């Protein structure tokens, strides 16, 4: 992709570990996750439910709900380690330098406040501006996310808006402080396919215009492949592969990534070769947090697994445009 991407990462996550405190001890949910994004860049974090991707998103803003907690690592935003900040300092970062949009636009907005009030709040909590100025900016934001008739929508309550409109309101809210980083946690999952494309297009357009770095959390590789620069694949709390989008689709190195890509339905396939083109699936399920195997977490489901995979966690290795964590990386494409 040929966007103007600066070289210095605006967000750098290093060795991030998150665990759940339980009676039987600490269950690790995310282990030593590292990645970075530059201004104007869009990174997708992809994985199955329960792989720790949403938890990672929340950890970036210091919002991991108990009994979960961050157990190690750093999250550097514009050079500052957010995990070292106290709650008050963190609050000033949230919604101002880094903001987040969520999966469920139906429940993510407060039902008893108008959408205008909720967007204005994001401005007024961070800046000493008059209500009138905040209102003007809110109307501009609503227009920016292409909500028709902003004046009227401003005074509307969330239940009067469609799912797509609510997600636009969420985006407007997230953009209110002109953040350096936008974290989007499955923002299109709950929407119709056509609306999905619109919302994705909008996020893509905004990051190009405003140079916002976007961390896009999703379980659906296909949805984001057109828009993201890089893909980070997570499995059972670890990064298993991170590559430029084009390279990843051209030649996935980790057997899990290959499985994910093979499990994508392709347009045009079907009718003609319905029998041959049966959608591939990855056999088995993700291991439970409490029953994590000592070696590679994917080994029980992996066609290439051998004795080494069962014993030792594969360390991440350089591979072309990115990294892969597999003892058999790139050995064979036969699956």
């Amino acid at each position, binding site marked *: 992709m040929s966007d103007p991407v600066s070289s210095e990462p605006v967000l750098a996550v290093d060795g991030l570990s998150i665990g759940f405190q339980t009676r039987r001890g600490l269950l690790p949910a995310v282990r030593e996750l590292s990645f970075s994004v530059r201004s104007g860049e869009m990174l997708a974090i992809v994985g199955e439910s329960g792989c720790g991707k949403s938890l990672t998103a929340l950890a970036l803003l210091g919002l991991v709900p108990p009994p979960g907690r961050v157990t190690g690592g750093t999250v550097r935003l514009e050079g500052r380690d957010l995990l070292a900040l106290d709650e008050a300092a963190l609050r000033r970062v*949230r919604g101002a330098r880094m903001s987040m949009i969520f999966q469920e636009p139906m429940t*993510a907005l*407060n*039902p*008893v*406040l108008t959408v205008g009030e909720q967007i204005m709040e994001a401005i007024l*909590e961070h800046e000493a501006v008059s209500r009138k100025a905040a209102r003007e900016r809110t109307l501009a934001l609503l227009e920016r996310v292409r909500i028709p008739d902003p004046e009227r929508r401003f005074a509307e309550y969330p239940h009067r808006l469609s799912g797509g409109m609510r997600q636009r309101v969420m985006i407007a809210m997230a953009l209110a402080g002109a953040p350096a980083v936008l974290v989007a946690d499955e923002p299109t999952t709950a929407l119709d396919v056509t609306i999905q494309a619109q919302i994705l297009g909008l996020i893509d357009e905004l990051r190009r215009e405003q140079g916002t770095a976007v961390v896009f959390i999703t379980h659906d590789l296909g949805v984001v492949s057109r828009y993201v620069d890089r893909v980070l694949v997570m499995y059972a709390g670890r990064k298993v592969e991170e590559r430029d989008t084009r390279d990843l689709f051209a030649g996935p190195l980790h057997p899990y990534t290959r499985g994910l890509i093979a499990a994508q339905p392709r347009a045009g396939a079907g009718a003609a070769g319905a029998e041959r083109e049966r959608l591939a699936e990855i056999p088995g399920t993700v291991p439970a947090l409490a029953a994590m195997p000592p070696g590679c977490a994917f080994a029980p489901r992996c066609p290439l697994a051998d004795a080494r995979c069962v014993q030792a966690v594969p360390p991440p290795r350089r591979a072309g445009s990115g990294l892969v964590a597999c003892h058999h990386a790139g050995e064979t494409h036969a699956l």
Partner: protein
Amino acid sequence: MLTYLRRSAAQVVFVLLGIALINFFLLHLAPGDAAQVLAGESGAATPEYMEALRRQFGLDQPLHVQFLRYLGNLVTFDLGYSFRQSLPVSELILQRLPATLLLMGTAIGFALVAGCSLGFLAARRAGKLTDTVISIVALLFYATPVFWVGIMLIVVFSVILDWLPVGGMTSVEANLSGLALVGDVALHLVLPAVTLGLFYLAIYARLMRAAMLEVYGQDFVRTARAKGVRPRRIAWRHVLRNALLPIVTTLGVQLGSILGGAVLVETVFSWPGLGRLAFAALFQRDLNLLLGILFCSSVVVVLVNIAVDLVYTLLDPRIELN
């Protein structure tokens, strides 16, 4: 709004008709009638005398005739005549109604404000000492019988400390007027209102705490935190507004029962309200008076419920009146 009021007015008519029907037949199911009680008290219960009494009060008519006559009277707000008190029922009720409404209103207001504040505080300090203390106190109030609380409050604040009057609504000896009278009534009101309110205070405190904690777990609170809203503002603006909805619902349901609670409190504090009047009417088989009181309290409860519905629409924009 107008459509809503018109529709609820139609509902009110049906509800009141139903209440009148139930009241009337329930009371007639009980053995004995006013003539028997009157005759029993006078000590001369000859069949002729009882027959005369019944004819005089229309008690010899068939039930449905008595009921239709009762309905006809209700429409003109003629609630009949209390043969025991020798006064029209409507007059008796109007004498007592303000005292009861004052007591109920004060008790509910006190319970709402104090209960919600305590619940709010407990939820904001969930799991901490403040929360534990509030929860235990609320449980205590919840479990203590109303009459016992009343008597204990009298013992402590009237007898031992001598801060507040023992009972009644005004001081008998003084002939007060204007502001002095208001102050005097307010002083008399404290103990009965607190007694009646404590139980409801406990309910609202517990409900408010639970509702707040539930709302704290909602997605939109996470959204508010993610956009950097101050915790204080989250509590007041995002959580409180939503947590008030179940409180209002409960309030509507409880207004009927608080009228029942008023009977006990009015008796303990000799408060000249409807509750005590109803209590007396029940024991004296003063059928007309009892029916009148039941009917009037139904009207109050129905009207208050409509008001609660209106408040609900103010709090929750998702509920629309039409």
